[in-house]
């Protein structure tokens, strides 16, 4: 394979190809799907956090107008286990017995002719509980603890000796509240059976995983399950699981023998599709007087449900962050009677970064070295541990370019030394890294006699731009105008693709497209191999190029012909090829994910404890950028989420285990007035780990923003806040 030719580092800011459809309200989201004769479902959820159901009276609900069925643990069939995924064991399926393990656990599903009838009947179900004490506090000594849950704990060197030898040691604890993903689109499932074949429209980031899960659970072949999600109203990780409500809806459709639709309510979105778990971290940094790290010990603890798994690798990236000889990481999970957490944008990494980058800021004050200079002194020129060169790493450039754009040089180091009128002004920064991730992916591309290309793969677009950047990349690689490429995704019947998650979709899908494009060119050359009418006859791929749908000789651009001409002359309707990528970490180098440096200015009204973000500058190394506009939106959107994490967001559990703020009125996410001008700039060079040179950008934008804000708050006020969110009561 050869590198992409003629591509600039930052791709054109092409408008979203799905934009017009979305603006007109014509993009079919899962919640928009309707079928004739469709029935509607409503969930009933537990109002205790631990115990058993002692009685469940559904008679009144069953007699209510329009009710078709009431599913409870007493009447549903046994379902087979769902499969393991890359994220671990599947979510616990709640209606298999009478046990309650968290408040908000599904205990019944009502199916009726209309959604109103279903919701009304759901309120008529009378449930008796035998309550047992719930464990709800991460510090509860009775809570079961899982140590090293993912086998990711690591140590290089001798941390104890390193700490003992250090001139300066910072030893601090950091806590972050639980948060909820809160995509704007309420998760919805529409399930329809056609005999033993199941079609499910669902809010999922991973159609292929969902297909396999539903096939396993219902004991049918995978080919008999079709999962459709052409458009998705956000998810931020909440769509990486096949949740019980999806399985229940499919089951209900089979029982009532009609298509069934379930749309979660906003409060149910807090209990049914995961959340970022509460975390406690301890960081110990040892350094020389000059600020060179000699030891780094990182311990991360997160909450988890009583019986389930969750991948929350808080410390996983820590060993690779800085050039430090002695590094150890420790992971723990504490089992509580809470809805099981799940992935939320940069799971683990967002939290781990807050602790490490806050601690580094503390170290910078302890040794009297500027925070950027401190990071430069500890910059990992090669991958720590392995000593391998990075496939790309422009973190140093991120610091310097970001600092320049931000005006970091204007900062006076002393806390409380900068003011504007009566407001305290603070400048803070943090570095960020996100790990490399790529998975197997396939794509099929056809070029038809009208000269257009049709690209398809079972990938998804969360709203982040998959359609657009895939269109752009395919257009570039096939030598077509963007308007002559059509991308079809969001359908498990298409060639298998991975999840849109882990910042790994585009590097996987993009390289599959790259592979398919090379095959496509070979296929057209093969088609004219014996064609005396073709100026391309007998040529090799490296002797030709494609421009605006016309293959021509590199040496003589006047000699060539179009895709359409070749197809027509050979009586072909189209040529179809498959592309595939099997991830292989590149030989002789350490595969690098994205890097970033975030710079934040805050204003603090100290009398009132009011914190406002005045501006954010982010310098990002995402390798080659496919589309300047969608990439920028990834970064600025994630920055807004980071502002929420730093200042506002907190999922509050009350003493009964109920989430006390499960509405948009009570759970605060940033509004426009909280978000200042956000500046994002891309630096670096194409990544060498894959031919297309890109690195995932979906998550690095949130990583580092909370630490940069907390560091700016310290600079403004002299207060070191080690607990998120930083609300005004913490600043009074």
């Amino acid at each position, binding site marked *: 394979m050869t590198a992409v030719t003629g591509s600039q580092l930052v791709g054109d800011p092409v408008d979203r190809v799905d934009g017009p459809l979305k603006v007109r309200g014509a993009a079919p989201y899962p919640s928009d799907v309707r079928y004739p004769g469709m029935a509607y479902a409503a969930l009933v959820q537990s*109002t205790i956090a631990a115990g058993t159901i002692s009685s469940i009276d559904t008679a009144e609900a069953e007699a209510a107008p329009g009710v078709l069925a009431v599913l409870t643990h007493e009447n549903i069939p046994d379902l087979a286990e769902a499969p393991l995924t890359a994220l671990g064991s599947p979510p616990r399926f709640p209606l298999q017995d009478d046990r309650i393990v968290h408040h908000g656990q599904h205990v019944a599903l009502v199916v009726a002719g209309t959604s109103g009838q279903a919701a009304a009947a759901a309120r008529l179900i009378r449930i008796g509980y035998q309550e047992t004490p719930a464990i709800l506090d991460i510090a509860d000594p009775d809570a079961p603890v899982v140590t090293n849950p993912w086998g990711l704990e690591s140590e290089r060197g001798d941390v104890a000796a390193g700490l003992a030898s250090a001139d300066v040691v910072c030893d601090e604890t950091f806590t972050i509240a639980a948060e909820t993903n809160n995509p704007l689109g309420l998760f919805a499932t529409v399930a329809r059976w056609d005999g033993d074949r199941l079609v499910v429209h669902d809010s999922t980031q991973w159609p292929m995983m969902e297909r396999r899960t539903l096939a396993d659970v219902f004991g049918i072949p995978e080919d008999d399950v079709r999962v459709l999600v052409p458009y998705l109203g956000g998810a931020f990780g909440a769509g990486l699981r096949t949740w019980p409500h999806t399985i229940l809806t499919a089951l209900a459709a089979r029982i009532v023998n009609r298509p069934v639709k379930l749309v979660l309510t906003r*409060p149910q979105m807090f209990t049914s599709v995961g959340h970022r778990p509460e975390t406690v971290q301890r960081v110990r940094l040892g350094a020389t007087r000059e600020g060179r790290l000699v030891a780094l010990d990182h311990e991360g603890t997160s909450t988890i449900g009583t019986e389930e798994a969750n991948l929350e690798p808080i410390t996983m990236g820590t060993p690779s962050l800085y050039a430090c000889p002695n590094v150890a990481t420790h992971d723990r999970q504490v089992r509580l009677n809470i809805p099981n957490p799940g992935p939320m944008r940069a799971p683990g990494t967002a939290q781990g970064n807050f602790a490490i980058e806050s601690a580094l800021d503390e170290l910078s004050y302890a040794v009297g070295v500027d925070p950027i200079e401190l990071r430069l002194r500890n910059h990992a020129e090669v991958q720590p541990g392995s000593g391998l060169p990075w496939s790309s790493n422009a973190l140093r450039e991120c610091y310097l370019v970001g600092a320049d754009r931000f005006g970091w040089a204007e900062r006076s180091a002393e806390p409380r030394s900068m003011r504007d009128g*009566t407001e305290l002004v603070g400048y803070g920064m943090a570095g960020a890294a996100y790990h490399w991730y790529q998975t197997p992916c396939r794509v099929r591309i056809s070029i038809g006699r009208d000269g257009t290309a049709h690209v398809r793969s079972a990938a998804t677009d969360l709203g982040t731009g998959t359609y657009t950047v895939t269109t752009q990349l395919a257009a570039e690689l096939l030598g077509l105008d963007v308007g002559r490429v059509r991308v079809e995704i969001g359908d498990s019947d298409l060639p298998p693709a991975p999840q849109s998650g882990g910042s790994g979709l585009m590097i996987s899908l993009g390289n599959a497209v790259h592979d398919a494009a090379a095959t496509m060119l070979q296929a057209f050359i093969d088609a004219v191999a014996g064609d005396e009418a073709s100026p391309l006859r007998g040529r090799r791929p490296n002797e030709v190029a494609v421009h605006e749908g016309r293959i021509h000789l590199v040496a003589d651009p006047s000699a060539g012909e179009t895709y359409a001409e070749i197809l027509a002359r050979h009586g072909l309707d189209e040529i179809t090829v498959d592309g595939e990528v099997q991830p292989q970490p590149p030989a002789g180098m350490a595969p690098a994910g994205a890097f970033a440096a975030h710079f934040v200015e805050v204003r603090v009204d100290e*009398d*009132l*404890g*009011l914190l*406002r973000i005045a501006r954010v500058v982010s310098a990002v190394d995402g390798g080659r950028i496919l589309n300047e506009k969608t990439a920028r939106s990834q970064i600025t959107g994630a920055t807004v989420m980071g502002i929420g994490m730093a*200042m*506002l967001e907190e999922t*509050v*559990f*009350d*003493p*009964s285990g*109920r989430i*006390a*703020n*499960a*509405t948009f009125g*009570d759970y*605060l996410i*940033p*509004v*426009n*007035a*909280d978000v200042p001008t956000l500046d994002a700039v891309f630096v670096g060079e194409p990544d060498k780990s894959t031919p297309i040179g890109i690195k995932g950008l979906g998550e690095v934008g949130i990583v580092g923003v909370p630490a940069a804000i907390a560091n700016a708050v310290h600079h403004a006020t002299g207060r070191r806040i080690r607990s998120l969110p930083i*609300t*005004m*009561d913490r600043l*009074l």
Partner: protein
Amino acid sequence: MEELAADPVVIERLPVVREALLLSASTQLRNMATIGGNILQRTRCRYFRDATVAACNKRAPGSGCAAVTGPARMHAILGADEHCIAVHASDLCVSLVALDADVHIQGTGGRRTVPLTGFHVRPGDRPDIENVLGHGEIITEVDVPLLPVGTRSGYLKVRDRASYEFALTSAAAALRVEDGVVAEARLALGGVGTVPWRAREAEEILTGAPVDDETFRAAAEAAVRDPFTVPGTEFKVELAKRTVVRILQTVSGVRS
């Protein structure tokens, strides 16, 4: 609400009302919302609003109060007790109680007028009763007396989110200052009371006192007397006092 905020008389003579209106809700909601509706809005409490919470004296008198023992933040510290700490979240009402607005009520038996300061009812042991409006009665009119010419007024709202969010604390103030001395004072607090909270004791301290931070701090102390707090609302005691000081500084011109 949006219409009233744009009224020329309100703009000129009642800045405190205009500011309270414009800091409420969102433009879309203000376009639809009425003044009577704002006055009659239910108090806010996330335990009251979730019917799965059993202990709520407002929903079921005598059942207890989950907010007193659970995590609380957007809750009242004045006029509150162990029965109920639901907050009256209106901004507009805070400005209107400061101005001695009257509520005109039409019932089946005739008309009556109630001062807004007496319209909302503290929870006591009957948190389910939030105002004096009887069965079959509606609000027909709200009378807002104009402030004397030369009076400066303003509204300060302190909240977690910069917009589209209820107050943690707020204050409405009107001051008429003559020769560096407060000639007339109006002060009310929001975000902290089970009802819109008129601070008469603070007004008495202000009246006749010199315009300075010492006066304002004394008024603030008087405005937040005998608070009832739970762990999540303790910070509001000091925050409310500072909110009072700040609005008085702003309205008096001590701080621009």
